[in-house]
C-alpha cells in the first residue's frame, strides 16, 4: 500500500504545532512553538493572547515543518486539525488555517478530537494493542476508557468534579508555585516526604474519580497553618498531595484491571508526562502482568504529531470534514 502522509495542526491551547506523520505512526517532522514563557508572566494561559500568538506564528511554524521534512504541502495526502476540545479562539485559528490548506491544495480535511489525539500519541513509534484501558489525564480531563479497536471507546469512569491537572494547578497556586503548576509540584515533591495526612477519597463502587475534596483539604490545611503562624513544608505538602492524587488514579485503574481482565494499559494526556504517575502505574501493571504503553515525553504534552496519528484511521475510513467545519470548546471522547 502507498505511504500516507498527513499534515497535522494543533492549536487547542498555548502551543502552535504542526507535524507531518507517515502512516499514522512515523513522525517525519514536528514543530512545537510553545507560548509558555509569555503566559507564565500572567500565572496561567490568557486565552486572547494565546489566540493572537497562534495567528502571528502559524505560517512560520508551517514553513519550518516543511523545511525539516524536506517536503511541500502538496506531497501530503490529507490535512488534519484539532477542532475540539480546547480554547475556542485558539482552536479557530488552527481550524481556519487547516481549511485554507485543504482548499488550496485540494486535500481532504480531517477533524480530530484533541483527547483522542493524546490516546493515539501511543501509536507513534509504538503499537496500540486492543483491548486496552486508557487513562486520559490532563488539565481538563480525567477519564478511564476501554478501547476495543480503533475509535471504539467505552467510558468506564470520569472525574465527578475537578480534573487531576486542574487540582495540581490549583494546589500549586495555593502553595505559591509558579505556572505551570503541575510540573512544579512534581519537581518539589521529589524533595519532600508524604508526611501530611490528607483525607482518602470516598471509596465508591464506580470507576469515577473525584479531586475537589483533596484540593479543598490542601487549601484548608494551608490556610489553617497560616492562621496559626506555622510554616508549611511545601515540599512535604507537594509530595503528600501528589501521592494522594495518584492513589486515586491507581485505585480505579486497579479495579478495572481486576474486573475487565484487560492486559494492555495506556496513559494519555498532558499529565501523563508526570514521572511519578508513570512509575506508579507501571508498578500496578507489573502486578497484573499488563503491558503499559507510554508515549515519549515529547508526545505527552500538546503536539501535532499525535493529531496526525489519530487522523490516520479516519483517513482510511474516509471520514472527511467540509470547509464549514467549526471549532468546539468542549467535548468528550465517548
Amino acid at each position, binding site marked *: 500500500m502507498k505511504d500516507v502522509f498527513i499534515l497535522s495542526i494543533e492549536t487547542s491551547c498555548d502551543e502552535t504545532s504542526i507535524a507531518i506523520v507517515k502512516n499514522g505512526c512515523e513522525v517525519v517532522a514536528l514543530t512545537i512553538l510553545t507560548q509558555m514563557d509569555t503566559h507564565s508572566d500572567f500565572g496561567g494561559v490568557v486565552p486572547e493572547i494565546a*489566540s*493572537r500568538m497562534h495567528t502571528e506564528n502559524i*505560517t512560520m511554524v508551517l514553513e519550518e515543518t516543511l523545511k525539516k521534512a524536506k517536503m511541500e504541502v502538496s506531497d501530503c495526502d490529507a490535512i488534519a486539525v484539532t477542532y475540539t476540545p480546547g480554547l475556542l479562539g485558539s482552536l*479557530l*485559528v488552527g481550524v481556519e*488555517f487547516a481549511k485554507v490548506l485543504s*482548499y488550496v491544495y485540494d486535500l481532504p480535511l480531517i477533524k480530530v478530537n484533541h483527547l483522542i489525539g493524546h490516546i493515539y500519541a501511543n501509536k507513534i513509534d509504538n503499537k496500540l494493542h486492543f483491548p486496552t484501558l486508557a487513562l486520559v489525564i490532563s488539565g481538563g480531563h480525567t477519564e478511564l476508557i476501554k478501547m476495543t479497536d480503533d475509535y471504539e471507546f467505552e467510558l468506564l469512569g470520569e472525574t465527578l468534579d475537578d480534573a487531576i491537572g486542574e487540582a495540581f494547578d490549583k494546589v500549586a497556586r495555593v502553595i505559591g508555585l509558579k505556572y505551570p503548576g503541575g510540573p512544579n509540584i512534581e519537581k518539589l515533591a521529589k524533595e519532600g516526604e508524604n508526611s501530611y495526612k490528607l483525607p482518602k477519597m470516598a471509596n465508591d463502587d464506580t470507576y469515577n474519580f473525584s479531586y475537589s475534596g483533596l484540593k479543598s483539604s490542601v487549601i484548608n490545611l494551608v490556610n489553617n497553618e497560616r492562621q496559626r503562624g506555622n510554616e508549611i513544608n511545601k515540599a512535604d505538602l507537594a509530595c503528600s498531595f501528589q501521592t494522594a492524587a495518584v492513589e486515586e488514579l491507581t485505585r480505579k485503574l486497579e479495579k478495572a484491571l481486576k474486573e475487565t481482565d484487560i492486559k494492555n494499559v495506556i496513559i494519555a494526556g498532558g499529565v501523563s508526562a508526570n514521572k511519578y504517575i508513570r512509575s506508579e502505574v507501571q508498578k500496578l501493571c507489573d502486578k497484573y502482568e499488563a503491558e503499559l504503553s507510554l508515549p515519549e515525553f515529547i508526545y505527552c504534552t500538546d503536539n501535532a504529531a499525535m493529531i496526525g496519528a489519530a487522523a490516520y484511521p479516519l483517513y482510511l475510513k474516509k471520514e472527511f470534514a467540509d470547509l464549514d467545519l467549526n*471549532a468546539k470548546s468542549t467535548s468528550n471522547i465517548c
Partner: protein
Amino acid sequence: MHLFIDTHLFDIIVILYKDGKIIRKEIVKDEKEHSRILMPLIKKVLKDETPESIIVVNGPGSFTGVRLGVTVAKTLAYTMNIPIRTITSLECLALSTTENEKIVGFNDKNGYYIGIFDNDYNLIGDFEYLTNNEYEKYTKNYNVITDCDLDFENIIEFALTKEDINPHKVNPIYVKKIDVEK
C-alpha cells in the same frame, strides 16, 4: 484579479475585483459563526481561480472576527505565493465618505473605535477606543461619521497602492485593551 476579505465585525464580505470593477461580491450579514461561513464563501467567490493578490481588513473590530479574516488571508497569500496588503476597518470608512473632516467610527457592544484621517487618507494620531460614556462626551465636540455605505471600489483601489507585506508579518490590529493589559 484581487481578492478582498473583510470579517472585522458582524458581516462577512468577500469580493473579487478586476480592472476597476467588482466581478463577484458576497456579503453575509450579522453572522455569528464566521468560521462556518468564511472559507465556503471564499471558495464560491474564487471558483478555483488563483487571485493575483489579497487585501484583508486587519481590524480593529471583533478580535475573533479580525483574527479569522487575517489568518485565512495570510495563509492564502503564503500558500498561493501571492502578494498581500492590509487595510484597516477605519480606513475603509474614511475612504467611503466625501466629508472633508474625516473623523470616522463604529461601535461594538461597549464603545466606539475612532480614527481621524486627512484628505489623503493618512491617519492623524492613533486609533482610539472610547467607551460609550466617553463617546457621548466626544461627540459634543466632534462630528463622528458612523453611517456610510462602504465604497468598495475606492477601498480596493486605495489598498492596491500600498506596499505588499510578507505574509508571515500580516497581523491584526486590536486597539482595544484586554484585561491583562490594563
